[in-house]
């Protein structure tokens, strides 16, 4: 592959330091790719496609009322990160996760942080993610969000920043593991000369974390993964994780709450007590008795069982209260407040439209900003100011004016780039990184995470539901 032909990028590039010169961490990768003919590279790309089809790695998208099961989009060039740099990020993620969990527990109990005026009360009272049904509860180890998929981006200077805390039902971790499997098949030679940290132990850590939540102290607590079913976009992941953990993959109808307020599975041998539920359905579908009465996915009475401590649910219902884009802006303050530490990982500058100054700034500069609704995820409902039309600007101004609390804005980010193989050769694309953090009794971070790439040139949208791709992510010891 000819690196000269790789179009120089004005952004921070993960592989190249400057034109045709690799970063130290990418030296081997750079030279190896250089040694391959373009034809060979295309052949490997095709092999990766075949491999994905053979392994059956897929995701589902909704389109015009139909569900389409698509092959997982994958780019063959890995994204290397130095192990030393990763150590710092790991610390930052653990710190953040701890503070967020202290916050959630506080919000559902004493509300000290609100009383002390660190976080404005209206953010909680007005949040659709705040569940009254969870007040007064303290889940095992005081931890609510047991699994987080935190989105990180590198800015123009190469500094990693937190873009989003995903504390509800973050997905993508199975693709992180499968991406490594694919790379090992496509570029086995690369693993000889380098020290790349393995990623396949995530399910073991997930299992240990879930087991640490079990109300019964037994060697093999019964763990179930609760999925909405095969029509969910992440169903592949639900079945993958259940399989990897040796856990039972269940749907709502497989579970019931008995008169003793315990959760049971329906099995051929009769009812079987469930200790821990890793739920992959949203809060409001969990329990028809408490939330959405028309939910077909939930288990009536499960909240009762959970409140009594007869079953553990991960993530705990109500965790989403710390996962909205307005609360996000206060995380550095939470870290200071609960841990008396400075945040290791910086946020992205965020303007909160409920504050007058920020509100005015956003309306005046909407053509330069990215505007996000506070409660959405998956990249939906976002305005990218510089790329939008005048009419769209007006529409969003109206939306913000109608409900300022529902919107935040952020400056356009110079997301870092990395080379991807296109039909025309290597070309740079923007990317982010989603590491996964587990907190039960202990706190643990994946070695790397899922790198998502915007496959459209110049695009900043990396979500796979919107045409994003992915890369294998390497934490490389040098």
């Amino acid at each position, binding site marked *: 592959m000819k690196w000269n032909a790789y179009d120089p990028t004005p952004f921070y590039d993960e592989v190249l330091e400057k034109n045709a010169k690799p970063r130290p961490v990418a030296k081997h990768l750079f030279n190896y790719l250089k040694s391959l003919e373009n034809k060979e590279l295309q052949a490997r790309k095709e092999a990766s496609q075949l491999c994905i089809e053979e392994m059956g790695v897929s995701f589902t998208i909704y389109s015009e009322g139909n569900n389409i099961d698509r092959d997982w989009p994958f780019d063959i060039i890995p994204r290397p990160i130095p192990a030393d740099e990763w150590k710092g990020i790991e610390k930052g993620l653990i710190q953040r996760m701890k503070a967020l969990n202290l916050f959630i527990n506080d919000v559902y109990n004493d509300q000290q942080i609100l009383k002390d005026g660190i976080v404005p009360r209206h953010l909680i009272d007005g949040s659709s993610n705040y569940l009254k049904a969870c007040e007064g509860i303290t889940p095992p180890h005081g931890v609510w969000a047991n699994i987080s998929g935190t989105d990180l981006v590198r800015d123009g200077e190469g500094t990693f920043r937190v873009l989003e805390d995903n504390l509800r039902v973050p997905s993508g971790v199975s693709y992180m593991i499968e991406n490594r499997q694919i790379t090992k098949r496509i570029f086995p030679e690369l*693993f*000889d000369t380098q020290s790349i940290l393995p990623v396949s132990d995530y399910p073991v850590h997930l299992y240990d974390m879930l087991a640490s939540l079990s109300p019964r102290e037994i060697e093999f607590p019964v763990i179930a993964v609760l999925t909405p079913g095969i029509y969910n976009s992440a169903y592949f992941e639900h079945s993958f994780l259940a*399989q990897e953990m040796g856990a039972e993959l269940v749907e709502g109808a497989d579970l019931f709450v008995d008169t003793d307020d315990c959760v049971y599975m329906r099995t051929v041998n009769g009812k079987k007590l469930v200790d821990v539920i890793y739920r992959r359905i949203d809060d409001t579908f969990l329990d028809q008795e408490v939330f959405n009465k028309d939910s077909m996915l939930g288990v009536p009475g499960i909240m009762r069982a959970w409140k009594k401590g007869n079953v553990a649910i991960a993530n705990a219902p109500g965790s989403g209260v710390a996962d909205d884009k307005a609360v996000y802006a206060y995380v550095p303050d939470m870290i200071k407040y609960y841990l008396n530490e400075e945040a290791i990982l910086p946020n992205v500058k965020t303007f909160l439209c409920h504050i007058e100054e920020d509100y005015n700034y956003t309306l005046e500069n909407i053509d330069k900003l990215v505007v996000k609704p506070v409660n959405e995820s998956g990249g939906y409902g976002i305005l990218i100011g510089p790329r939008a039309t005048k009419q769209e600007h007006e529409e969003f101004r109206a939306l913000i004016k109608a409900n300022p609390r529902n919107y935040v804005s952020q400056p356009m980010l110079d997301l870092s780039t990395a080379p991807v193989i296109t039909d025309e050769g290597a070309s740079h694309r923007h990317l982010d990184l989603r590491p996964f953090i587990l907190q039960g009794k202990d706190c643990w971070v994946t070695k790397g995470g899922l790198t998502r790439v915007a496959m459209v040139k110049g695009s900043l949208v990396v979500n796979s539901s919107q045409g994003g791709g992915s890369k294998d992510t390497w934490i490389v010891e040098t």
Partner: protein
Amino acid sequence: MLSRNAERIYWMGRYIERTEDTARLLNAFSHVMMDLPKSGKLGWDVLLKIMATEPLFYEHYEVANEANVVKFLLDDIENPSSIRSAVRAARENARTLRDRLPLEGWEMLNDLNLFIKKGAGDASRKRNRFQFLTDTITKCQCFNGMIRTTLSRNQSYEFLCMGAFMERADMTTRTLDIAADILLQRSDEDGVFDIHIWMEILKAQNAVMMYRVKNGPRSSPRAVMRFLIGEEDFPRSIKHCVDSMAGSVQELPRNELFIENIEGLIASLDKFVEQNELVPADLRTFFDETQQGLNELHSIIATTWFLSAVAPEQTQNQTQEETA
């Protein structure tokens, strides 16, 4: 049936199994070497230790690096345990048994032999290796499936099964023996990623899912060994192999000595499963005894039913007892 045929079909069973097991081992080992960062890597000579072919290897090669070891175990006709040799030997045995096997059996073995001859050279390149090994395993499984669904349950069948189970038990014992010897002695620092190795050992036996259903995803050395040694429901565990041999032998005449011996081995396997701790020194004794027990069973089979017991000089080339 003729003693001569009993012997051939027993060895055919062993060689097919050896082909599959070696392919599995090589595949798993190649994978684990990619997964481990430099500090945790193992040497390629580990494979030679497992296959008990170190002396022969060093007669032909100087260094036990990836290229040499893979060639030796895959494609080297000088090595009677290589996949190439094993398939050829299986086919040679089948050649003289055509009247006893289902028609398709002979063709399948020819196909396998041709496949190995053509592809084994290229498979030294890592990129081709995984596909090649996977295909080899699939072809062995096809053969086994065909036998299982179409061979009459006569004495041929019992000898074939005994061969396959003997080889499988033998191979698993040696793999676990060497793995335990290396991994349980490593410093914690070298062994941070050993959990991946134990996982790969399960993978080599296609045991990952069955293990998880039973034990959850945690793979401690003790749980993995316990499963692969003593889980009687799992068809690739040593216990299951030995139980199956005990079952097969029920159908054969003059089986008293064999039964007496195998009961001792079964008791020792059961005792191992009940142990709560893994003491490296005990383990070594246990594996030595199991190995010895299997070898004895093999000799009893040979002396009780095979032609070599009657006229050893005629069949010396057949019984390649390099494992004994």
